[in-house]
């Protein structure tokens, strides 16, 4: 009996370590690279791959925050304008003088954390659906930025430090942006797997009621998670402003769908409670490669939108179906 049970449990234990969604996402990455290499041999060159990883790091930083919120079973739709707030406030701070130049990055991130906290209060204290709270905060952030910039792209340039972390290269030609993503990712893995905060995030995502009854500090954890998401989105905006050397209106708009898609394609359940950071890494790289290959193949913009949406739906239908969809 005991042996039968053990053999029954065996595949489950194996599955827990190697997530099938993560595996298939990495499989798709390899397949995409092979398809690309048939088209042009430069797809497998280290320069192209490093360049793609550098572009992926912006999305990676933003998707990290999104993943923590999705693990809670919530969603953060305020990403587009929080990204813009991060970029715009950091460049605005650069225009204030030497002190502003030094503090540009922290100021950008702090603005994002503040907006994230507003999201968190709405969700955790007022108990409103995260989808509408974050949509409302997105609208308010947009309004604030339109008033702040007068509706034009701000003239301030990004600070040297911002440009250094977004476009510079360190030892062995590794892009700094990639190192930034690695640090953010390592911190996220530590936070999610080795701290009380991380355990509580998974517990809330599985069943908030049970987490609350077990004495977990659900309210502060939800608020902290939204603040983290806001801060990381704004940090993504700071990096993007450094990359383009200035901020722009609607600079965050192209990052909402990819961030959600990367997290969900990486096997994190949209209902919360299940998912690994490695999956999100795979999802981010997959989305970036897909976008890159579609544009290299010179498919027109409308085709890119269609293929992009269809691929996301198809991959989710293959392995992203919610187990709890009927309750």
């Amino acid at each position, binding site marked *: 009996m005991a042996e039968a049970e053990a053999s029954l449990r065996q595949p489950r234990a194996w599955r827990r370590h190697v997530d099938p969604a993560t595996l298939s996402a990495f499989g798709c990455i390899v397949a995409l690279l092979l398809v690309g290499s048939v088209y042009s041999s430069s797809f497998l060159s280290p320069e192209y791959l490093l360049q793609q990883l550098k572009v992926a790091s912006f999305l990676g930083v933003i998707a990290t925050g999104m993943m923590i919120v999705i693990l809670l079973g919530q*969603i953060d739709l305020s990403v587009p304008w929080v990204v813009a707030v991060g970029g715009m406030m950091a460049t605005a701070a650069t225009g204030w003088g030497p002190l502003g130049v030094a503090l540009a990055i922290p100021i950008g991130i702090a603005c994002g954390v503040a907006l994230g906290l507003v999201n968190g209060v*709405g969700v955790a204290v*007022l*108990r*409103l*659906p995260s*989808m*509408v*709270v974050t*949509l*409302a*905060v*997105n*609208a*308010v*952030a*947009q*309004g*604030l930025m*339109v*008033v702040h910039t*007068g*509706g034009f792209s701000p003239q301030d340039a990004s600070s040297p430090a911002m440009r250094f972390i977004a476009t510079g290269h360190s030892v062995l030609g590794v892009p700094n942006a990639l190192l930034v993503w690695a640090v953010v990712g390592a911190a996220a893995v530590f936070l999610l797997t080795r701290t009380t905060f991380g355990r509580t995030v998974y517990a809330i995502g599985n069943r*908030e*009621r049970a987490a*609350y*009854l077990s004495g977990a500090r*659900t309210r502060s954890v939800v608020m902290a998670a939204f603040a983290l998401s806001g801060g990381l989105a704004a940090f993504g905006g700071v990096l993007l402003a450094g990359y383009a050397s200035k901020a722009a209106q*609607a600079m965050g*708009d192209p990052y*909402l*769908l990819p961030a*959600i*898609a990367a997290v*969900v394609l990486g096997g994190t359940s*949209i*209902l919360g409670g299940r998912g690994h950071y490695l999956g999100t890494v795979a999802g981010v790289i997959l989305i970036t490669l897909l976008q890159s290959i579609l544009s290299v193949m010179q498919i*027109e*913009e*409308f*085709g*890119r*939108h*269609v*293929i*992009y*949406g*269809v691929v*996301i*739906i198809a991959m*989710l*239908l293959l392995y*992203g*179906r*919610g187990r709890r*969809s*009927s*309750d």
Partner: protein
Amino acid sequence: MSSDWPYRLREHRGTLLALLAFVVMFAIYATNHPVGLNANVATTAANKGVLLAIVAMAQTLVVLTSGIDLSVGMVMVLANCLASAIVVGSPRATALGVLAVLGVGLLCGAINGAIVIYGRLQPIVTTIATGAVYYGAALALRRVPGGDVDASLAEALTGQLPGGSIPASLALLLALVLVVWLPFRHSAIGRAAYAVGSSELAAYMSGVPIRRAKFVAYLLSGLLASVAGLFLTCITYSGEASAANGNTYTLYSIAAVVLGGVSLFGGSGSAIGAIFGALMFRTIGDLLFVFNLDPLWQPLFQGVVLAAAVCLGAARLLHVRNRLDLYG
């Protein structure tokens, strides 16, 4: 028989509050308007309000089943681009064009519904992704803004009713309520949609046709969104594949639904409430112009109004007796 009026009042409280708020705001708007409320001012205001009201109706149908449709704006944009290409020419061609546009709307709704119901994906992710596909299709039809629409149809829908100064768009809205919303609300499928939104498990246990109810809700949502696209074409006389436009209307439709007293958890509220929510939201935006404020402040003002309306949803915290009820 007459003893059930407190219950009926409570059932329609959201709709009535939205109506009251709209009437108050519109009165402020009309009395302070520099030109006064003549037929042209009323028609322009009505056209803008009705456009959003139709999109809000589309959103309501899905929200009632405790889903969400983040692709309504994109279906509208797609219908707009399609209408600017085919709703033109002889009366026969125009009529066929209108039918084709509505058919495409139904198709978009059917795709959303099929993926959510039979593919068992979450409505948020599904409709974001299908929205990208619909936007791509719109872009394929209209790479640059342009096109045209049958002038007599546009005039009939966006002008004034013959023999009076009543905006024709209000008649269109009334027709949609009579032809789409009321039959749905009073049919078995409509009741099933409310039941699903209220508690899917209980609805399932009671033998309610869950899948059919949800599917019809998504289908009609797509249809109404395409009517909105057609109407937009009649207002602008052109088609434009604008992602910003689509996203704005999706966002505003959710705002209108919330302002109209429809519960985002599903199962309560009505499309009529959402219509008044939409008209109220439009009036709020126009109030700024009436009081001569810098249009730069309009997005912030609308955002703050939206946030305040969303916060009204927290009023239920005051009625909660057991804190555990807060955790689903």
